[in-house]
């Protein structure tokens, strides 16, 4: 009896300890970036152009580049993902075919990001001749986060009770009227959650934009979607591994990492606010 209780306790503390360990890792990363990054942050760093291959100056073009890429990605991926999810949950009959589609989506989620980069290079940059550009990069990132958005949207749609649909149909609504007026509004918060996760990934990935959008050093702002841009994760990668004076410009790296972190948190924050607002409006 006693040894049984000891066993329970060991298991309990083991699991509790492992959970805390995860928090410790995250806290360590955050604190490390904050401590080393904060001194590098200045008005000039955020709004200025990079100089001497990024060893001095600011990172404004990279901030803006990442912002453009994320916006472009969401603009493409959100509608595509939402409509695919609506088709799969509301319209398609359950069959071998839809099972295959679902499996393809899950598989897509597991494809390494560098493969998406190569795919984007082949299709958007070369075959469609967009060149390395915001457009090509956004489309590539969109392909990458599409599974996340589709799966989250499907779950959100499935969470809307069946009686919402039946109630609407019984009042003489067509299928689309029912979905548009009495399903989508309630599924929107969940769909936005998918978008939030997608945004985080799109902003932070390096590999997909490496070959499709990012410029190594481009101290000027893009003027159209066909322009190449700098991007924060790629800039960070360059500074940390490719720069001849990588060790000397550590503060620049930490500063860039901190800005990227805050950008992602900020974008998530906007999406979370949006989600809370929608959820408040339709509570059941």
């Amino acid at each position, binding site marked *: 009896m006693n040894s049984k209780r000891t066993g329970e306790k060991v298991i309990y503390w083991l699991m509790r300890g492992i959970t805390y360990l995860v928090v410790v890792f995250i806290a360590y990363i955050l604190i490390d970036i904050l401590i080393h990054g904060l001194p590098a942050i200045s008005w000039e760093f955020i709004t200025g152009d990079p100089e001497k291959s990024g060893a001095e100056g600011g990172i404004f073009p990279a901030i803006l580049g990442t912002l453009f890429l994320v916006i472009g990605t969401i603009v493409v991926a959100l509608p595509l993902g939402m409509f695919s999810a609506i088709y799969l949950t509301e319209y398609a009959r359950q069959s071998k075919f839809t099972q295959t589609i679902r499996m393809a989506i899950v598989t897509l989620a597991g494809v390494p990001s560098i493969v998406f980069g190569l795919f984007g290079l082949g299709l958007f940059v070369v075959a469609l001749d967009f060149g390395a550009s915001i457009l090509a990069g956004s489309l590539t990132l969109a392909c990458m986060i599409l599974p996340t958005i589709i799966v989250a949207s499907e779950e959100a749609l499935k969470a809307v009770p069946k009686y919402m649909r039946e109630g609407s149909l*019984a009042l003489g609504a067509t299928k689309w009227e029912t979905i548009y007026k009495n399903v989508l509004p309630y599924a929107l918060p969940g769909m936005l959650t998918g978008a939030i996760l997608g945004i985080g990934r799109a902003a932070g990935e390096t590999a997909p934009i490496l070959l499709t959008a990012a410029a190594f050093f481009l101290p000027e702002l893009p003027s159209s979607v066909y322009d190449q841009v700098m991007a924060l994760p790629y800039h960070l990668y360059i500074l940390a591994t490719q720069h001849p004076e990588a060790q000397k410009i550590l503060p620049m790296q930490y500063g860039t990492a901190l800005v990227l972190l805050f950008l992602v948190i900020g974008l998530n924050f906007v999406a979370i606010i949006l989600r809370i607002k929608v959820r408040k409006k339709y509570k059941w």
Partner: protein
Amino acid sequence: MSEILTDNNNKVHVENMNFYYGNVQALFDINMDIAEKKVTAFIGPSGCGKSTFLRTLNRMNDIIDGTRIEGKVLIDGSDIYNPMTDVVALRKKVGMIFQKSNPFPKSIFDNIAYGPRLHGVKDKNQLMEIVESCLIKSALWDEVKDRLDKSAMGLSGGQQQRLCIARALAINPEVVLMDEPASALDPKSTLKIEDLVNELKKDYTIIIVTNNMQQAGRVSDYTAFFYEGKLIEFGATGQIFTKPNQKQTEDYITGRFG
């Protein structure tokens, strides 16, 4: 065995109807006439097909994959399963109240205006008139008139169900299908719904599925007893409850099974 009533104007006529979920047959050779502006109750043990039958009358089963129907269902003489039938128009004519009250997470006003708006009513004053008259008809007006803009989710269970009735009435149906409308309500709310049914039959043909025998006895003019997908007996409620022709009906009504 089934009977056809002929002493009334019939609103619904069902002929040799069979219904299947995939390969499973749920209804067997149903023949039935349902009288206009009367209350017809469907009774029978769970799984006997009474709800399935109810849902064939506004083609609600269409939304379930793999269902199939044979035979004829006529409403006002026209076959509702004719390929040319406009399902939207049918459901406008044949309203439905569900077992679980299902107000939409919108305001009370928007709930009732949902149907009229779908069918093209945009004028705010006209919508207000509809909302008021339907709430009066469903005996809910006095309780909610000061909070039409508040969420319908804040109403009690009984109020929610009456709201759903008001919402169904807002599209001017001729037939109202009720699928165990009071099964989730307390006795007091149940009585209110029953009073409402009595009131509504002046203007509407009402078909009500119920598991509550006393309820069927109280509210209906005709009662149909279903068992294992077959219509066992159908007749005036008084006759069904006092001297049923079938042994199975008698056993069920007296509580010997089901």
